[in-house]
């Protein structure tokens, strides 16, 4: 018994179609204020390619494949880690009124997260207005 699944051509098209629709809908409601972090955030999401890189490298059976596979993991992990670092930094800076200023440090980001939740009602009301 095995849990190996096979995704045929048409099933793949269905997956692509539904996912593309989801992506379109998710981004459609993003306010312009978040466009830069969002580009960076979606850039982070395709860093998942590192998983494919690891799979490929582990199955490499010649020096050439090992070399290319090494670069796949190297570049993919750079995409994921770098994308996360810049996105998290940018998003931690967004503060509502009344929050302690400065979200540069990890501590600050954590605090901001808590504050954000406490004022979320007001912000949501404002979002509804706009």
């Amino acid at each position, binding site marked *: 018994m095995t849990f190996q699944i096979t995704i045929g051509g048409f099933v793949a098209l269905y997956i692509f179609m539904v*996912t593309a629709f989801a992506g379109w809908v*998710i981004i459609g409601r993003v306010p312009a204020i978040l466009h830069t972090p969002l580009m960076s955030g*979606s850039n982070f*999401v395709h860093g*998942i390619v590192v998983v494919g890189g*690891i799979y490929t490298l582990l199955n490499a059976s010649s020096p050439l494949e090992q070399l290319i596979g090494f670069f796949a993991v190297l570049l993919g992990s750079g995409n994921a880690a770098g*994308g996360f670092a810049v996105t*998290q930094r940018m998003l931690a800076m967004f503060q509502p009124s009344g929050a302690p200023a400065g979200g540069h440090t990890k501590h600050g980001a954590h605090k901001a997260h808590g504050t954000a939740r406490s004022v979320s009602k007001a912000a949501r009301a404002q979002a509804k207005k706009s």
Partner: protein
Amino acid sequence: MLIMISQLIIGGVDLAAAFLLMFGLWRMSSPVTAPSGILVAGVGMLVAVVASFLYVFTVDAAARPHLPANIALAAGALVLGAGVAWWSGRKVAITAMPQAVALFNGMGGGAAAAIAAVELFGNRAQGWVASIVTLLGALIGTVSLSGSVIAWAKLDELLKKPLHVPGLQLFNGAILLAGLAVGGYLALSLAGALTPLLPNTILIEIFFGMAVLYGILMTLPIGGADMPVVISVYNAFTGLAVGLEGFVLQNPALMIAGMLVGAAGLLLTLLMAKAMNRSVVKILFSSFGPAAKQKQGAIKGSLKPVQPSDAGIFMHYAKSVIIVPGYGLAAAQGQGKLYDFVKLLQAGGVKVTFAIHPVAGRMPGQMDVLLAEAGVPYDLIKQLADVNDEFKTADVALVIGANDVVNPDARTVKSSPIYGMPILNADQAKKCYVVKRGDGKGYAGIVNPLFYADDTYMVYGDAAAVCVAMTEAVRGLGAAAA
């Protein structure tokens, strides 16, 4: 048994990771939930990467002797790539964010292309569908890699002038067609439908070479101001390439995450292009000659310079002030000093709002990030559509380091290069102060009649220095009164 369990775990974890990445992106769509959204997505990524090492139990027989070396290589590449990128991502200045995103995006495209290369060189893709999808992903990923590197170099000002060669677009089209032809020939050869004239490995190398060249030549003619749209296009490209390679590797998590970004990136590109009043096709495929001499609307009035202290004190006595920041503010690193001044005004009871034009900064939304970095709460920051009617009732519009986005010619002068671009109605405020380094023109290279209007006063100087001077003037006022 071990194989079964590892497959079960990988399947479950990848399912969870796909959900977390999607859910995280969804939470990123509001400033309130966004900081937790990236953390959610980060958890998804982390577990997927850790679980992917369980693939050691299911490697091909041919790769089994190499397994220890491969594990070491994978761990090494992971630590090295993630470490360097993490360090540089933490260190990079917020003003340099567009370049960083371009570079990280190019890396993703390169990774997808490298996966495709292993599939192709090892002739692993089974059947013609898999071959074609692999080749398509390879092409898109490689173009994204080389194009993103050029975009990075342009934004980092390593490459200064856009390349203008007559007929370049035609040549690019020919390269793309030739690349597709080589790819098609290769697909037939890989499927065993014909005996190729050249060995497959040579064909694969030619194919990748053409893709690299196409990415470079396609990006070189595009001007620096259009780079955000280009990066967004390549972001969508990388997503698409990842999704396609995910299909080849039969990994649904890659397919979902990749296609999610492909669609999201496409929509984001269209939104940005719309905000800049440009068409995506024009940005990507028209090589602009040197800007044609445009007819200028007749300029009436004169430039009226005032001292920063006068401007500062006037705003202190105003009821409401709307600030229009532009890239000049970021270039002078004046956001923090500006916010100091704003806090002082607020303490005196002045209602202050920031009005952000969609193309303020180098990337849509970048000005919002720069203000957030200075500690400006996001509920003071308003976008064009929400704030434009408030200028009519505002006492003062303070334009700092912005130019074309407040040029009223965009509304009325049909021959103006920026005609039709939505602008902020700073000219409708009762009084307008413009902080500028000198009499220079904006990016579009045109004179701004707003600066000559009756109620507009020019404050010359570095944006940061002007903010400090205004703050000191208002503080001095308080001290004198006390």
